[in-house]
């Protein structure tokens, strides 16, 4: 997969609390802005729920590429939902994923923040590129930017928090994680291409979904 779901026990309890607190602040801000804009926002809720279901379901499918990869399609979620609803969606996907053991419950905060970076940057990059380039190219570019930023965010989160029980310095942890980022980017290229093809297909079937 293009990003690692950090497992329970990787961070100390203090850092678990810190990442949860930041995520709660982000969620409260998103919910507050949502309510101020449209108090009921029924269609937004229903669309977010359905996209969340698709994102979680696609993750359960092993693609027979390079021996088997799993994709969360967070960039695609971000492009279709936008940053606000996208952040709510990745939070719920992380809760579901934790329930089946992919990512820790304690680290839902850190994992959701990493995914939120992917969702937000993919959306913004797609808005920037779409129109100047074709839908496929914009989708690939947006997904790659989002996933690259997600990888960087993950490394920052791990380096800042440190691995529980390790005596390595932050710079040593950083150099250990560089290799992981390289592997991540390789899978990100596949996820980016899938995102590009999916968006090109969406544009043919429902162009209104990309214009709104």
């Amino acid at each position, binding site marked *: 997969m293009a990003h690692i*779901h950090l497992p329970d026990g990787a961070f100390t309890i203090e850092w678990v609390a810190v990442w949860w607190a930041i995520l709660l602040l982000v969620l409260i801000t998103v919910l507050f802005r949502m309510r101020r804009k449209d108090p009921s926002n029924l269609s937004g809720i229903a*669309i977010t729920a359905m996209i969340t279901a698709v994102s979680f379901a696609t993750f*359960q499918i092993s693609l027979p590429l390079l021996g088997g990869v799993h994709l969360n399609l967070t960039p695609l979620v971000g492009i279709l939902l936008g940053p606000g609803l996208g952040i709510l969606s990745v*939070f719920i996907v992380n809760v579901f994923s934790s329930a089946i*053991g992919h990512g820790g419950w*304690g680290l839902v905060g850190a994992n959701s923040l990493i995914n939120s970076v992917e969702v937000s940057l993919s959306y913004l990059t797609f808005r920037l590129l779409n129109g100047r380039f074709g839908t496929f190219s914009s989708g690939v570019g947006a997904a790659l930017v989002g996933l690259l930023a997600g990888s960087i965010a993950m490394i920052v989160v791990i380096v800042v928090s440190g691995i529980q029980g390790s005596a390595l310095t932050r710079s040593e942890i950083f150099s250990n994680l560089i290799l992981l980022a390289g592997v991540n980017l390789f899978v990100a290229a596949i996820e980016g291409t899938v995102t590009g093809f999916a968006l*090109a297909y969406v544009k043919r079937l429902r162009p209104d*979904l990309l214009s709104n």
Partner: protein
Amino acid sequence: MARTSFSSHIPDFYLISYFAENGNSIIHRSSSYLKFAYLFLVILATTSIQKTEYLLVLFLFTLVVYRLGNMPLNLLWRWYLIPTSFIFAIAFLFVFNEPGIQFLSLTVLSKVKIQITYEGLVLLLRLILRTLSTVTYSLSLIMTTKYSEICYIANIVLPTPLNTIFILAYRFSFVVLGEIVALLKALSSRGGDLVRGLMTQTRIFGGIFAVAFVHSFDRAERITKAMEARGFERRIPTHSVPGRPSLLGMLILIVVLILITYGLIS
């Protein structure tokens, strides 16, 4: 129960639901409130316990809970693959450069010296025990708790509209997964899985996922209209109130919580 997921190492949502709805073990009959409270304790314990032997005891405890729920161990080993791969992805290199007593030393290509330290191995072992403890307990929890009770608790715990998104997404995950599996079967029956080439395969899967996303928008539009027609008032009503926790269960919960808190403070 036929397994419908396309990955043997990913917990099958249908199978999980089958066990949750049809099981009748002691864990199935326990209060869902209590099971969620114990989840909190397991997370707290895995995050705060430092001694390897205590972590091993915690892992064995979660395995006992899993078996008491009459759930299959042969699937559990396969389901450990992805969580374990996450740990290795993060911490594998620590085995080689974690400072400490040298455990093994190898000279590769007559020049490059690789050493494995005892502390690095212990770090990796602890991480594996921590992660697999929560994975095992978490799977025990969702495989023994009915869908309706999970939704009831989510409705209480999560703020609006996150609770509505959670309940709808959970409900429709089964529908969407079924739809994607049907698309993959259709592709396979036409010989589509014999296609080779990275770009061709990604185009095929991109198309399948796009169909799932477009259908989800169509479905969301229908759901919105149905909710409006029914006079939706910010919250989906859930009526399956979980049973009250037993006195013994509560007592154990409090004692363990005190022990962990004491350990954390001291």
